[in-house]
């Protein structure tokens, strides 16, 4: 009885699978030109995304040589090494604080900025253009500039603070572990604000304006309009933009590396700068692969859970 049932389901399953393949093949045969045009992009995607990804996965579960090649299957050996690493716990905590701290701060600063820029006032267009300034230079170069601004002897920040008599000391911004960590978060936030603000602006501009009229007639004041109309309407874009920002912050390299290289004493490292050190300084490529793979898996799970949870109430 059970056996027959199984046979039936599996045969119908293979049948439907075959149908899918057949319909795909038919689709390609009938419409081959568009698919032909897709081939270059698919090849690029494979070369630039799939290959490194697969390579990392293989490397994470292999023993590696000093130039990063997988030499033999190593099961979980790299992960065991990683767990035993004396810095890994700190690095994990720092990464999490760096990511969620900078994204939260970026949201908190970008939303009011977007609300202001969404108003009509003289110079609004100029203000919106100025907003894009942090994007004018490559991030690595801006981060380098910030490193000089924070320099204890030659930096503009100390110069201004001392001249205005706010502080007398030459504060060692990037040598003190806590201050340095705050500084890299600051620069990360500074560099992320334009994108998030523009996304919020786009979100604000796509809110149907008449719902504010309706709310006013229903008895809403400015606070209600913001709380009951604007915020819920921005929910979707906020979910997307925070998810993207979290993923990007997890992979952030171009702020920390030019500014501190993770110094002092690995206290400003995140997982990416640390895995870079593992691989290229300690030549522990396997561990580096393992850390990269772990980050990848974490982000994948996180993305799925995050979108599921935040979207669950919507039908």
């Amino acid at each position, binding site marked *: 009885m059970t056996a027959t049932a199984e046979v039936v389901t599996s045969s119908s399953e293979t049948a439907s699978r075959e149908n899918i393949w057949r319909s795909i093949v038919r689709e390609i045969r009938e419409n081959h030109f568009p698919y032909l045009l897709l081939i270059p992009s698919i090849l690029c995607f494979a070369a630039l995304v799939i290959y490194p990804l697969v390579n990392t996965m293989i490397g994470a579960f292999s023993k590696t040589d000093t130039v990063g090649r997988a030499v033999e299957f190593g099961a979980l050996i790299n992960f065991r090494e990683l767990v035993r690493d004396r810095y890994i716990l700190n690095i994990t905590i720092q990464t999490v604080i760096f990511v969620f701290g900078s994204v939260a701060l970026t949201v908190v600063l970008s939303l009011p900025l977007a609300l202001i820029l969404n108003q009509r006032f003289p110079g609004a267009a100029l203000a919106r253009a100025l907003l894009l300034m942090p994007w004018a230079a490559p991030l690595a170069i801006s981060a380098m500039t910030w490193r000089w601004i924070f320099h204890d002897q030659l930096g503009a920040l100390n110069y201004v603070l001392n001249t205005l008599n706010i502080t007398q000391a030459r504060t060692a911004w990037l040598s003190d572990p806590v201050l340095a960590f705050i500084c890299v978060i600051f620069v990360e936030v500074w560099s992320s604000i334009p994108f998030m603000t523009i996304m919020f602006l786009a979100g604000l501009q796509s809110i149907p304006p008449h719902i504010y009229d309706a709310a006013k007639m229903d*008895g809403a004041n400015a606070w209600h309009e913001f709380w009951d109309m604007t915020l819920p309407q921005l929910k979707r874009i906020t979910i997307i933009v925070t998810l993207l920002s979290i993923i990007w912050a997890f992979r952030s390299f171009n702020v920390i590396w030019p500014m501190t290289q993770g110094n002092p004493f690995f206290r400003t490292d995140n997982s990416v700068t640390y895995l870079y050190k593992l691989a290229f300084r300690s030549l522990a490529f396997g561990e580096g692969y393992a850390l990269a793979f772990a980050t990848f898996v974490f982000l994948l799970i996180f993305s799925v859970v995050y979108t599921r949870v935040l979207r669950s109430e919507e039908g």
Partner: protein
Amino acid sequence: MSVVVCKELVKRFGATVAVDHVNVEIQDGEFMVFVGPSGCGKTTTLRMIGGLETVTSGDIFIDGVRVNNLAPRHRDIAMVFQNYALYPHYKVFDNIAYPLRLRKRPKAEIEERVNTVARMLGVQHLLDRWPRQLSGGERQRVALGRAIVRNPKLYLMDEPLSNLDAKLRVQMRREIIHLQRNLGTTTIYVTHDQVEAMTMGDRIMVMRAGKVQQIGAPEVLYNHPANLFVAQFIGSPAMNAFKGRLETDDGKIVVATEFGRFPVGDPLVARLKPDRSPTLGAREVICGIRPEDITLDDAPVTPASPQAQVDLVEGLGADAYVSLTIGGTTLIARTPADCPPAENQLVTIHLNPNKLHLFDPITEETLLALP
């Protein structure tokens, strides 16, 4: 329940004058319709009364209180928008409940009132849906529900039926009238559809280019239009209009036109405004006649009676519209559909002498006083 008064109301958008010195008084419990062609300032007037648009000059009073600078939330007015303006991020229940939530009503009361209103409008099975999952007619009802869930002083409705199909529109028209009669709340209803205006309004205000043309009950507008614009805007097909001249034949006043001389009924002569009465011999006028006041017959033609050629007959079931040409003028007549004339046939036309409308050819104002 309230009285709305607009005094010399003006709204300018830059150089455009959207609303031009509007004076109107809306009575307690009245169903007032603003009607006029697109862009004539109906919506703008309504939005000023609601407080969504600032007033350039003039005053608005609600129950004797000047409200020009009062925020909408302090005016206690509910509005139904042309595009419904439902809150997309709230389910139907919360859409209707929102005005009550803002007023901090207890939960049980909100629940009860939303349910009552939903039953009244036949949307109780939709309360758990999102607005995007509703049809146009259902959205319409929800928008109405959101307005009537509280008891405001005044309803403002901006073309609420314009997105519905013809059948649903007729049905919703009745429902809105029914609702308003039951609630007895003063209502201002905007439409550009004169049929809607005629069937729904206790009184109608006709607007054109920001200016009020006439305010009155539907019958008054239909039978005694104040000017040519109102005459031709109200009624379908539009009133026929042609040039003429008031003259006398044997002491009787007639309109002499390019295509014949038509007697003017005594009741009309009596109503000719004194300063306008023909200092006989030559008074140029524009003469109007509604399609149903033209009768046709194919009786043997006498040389004296004006003859028209039938161009087109459009049957509508009970009636037929007959397009006629007579001496370069096109007229439309409405006849019973059972014996319409044939196309290309020659017919004799009779204009009902008591149903003529006479307008000044320059100002286009009526020459007839109200009876």
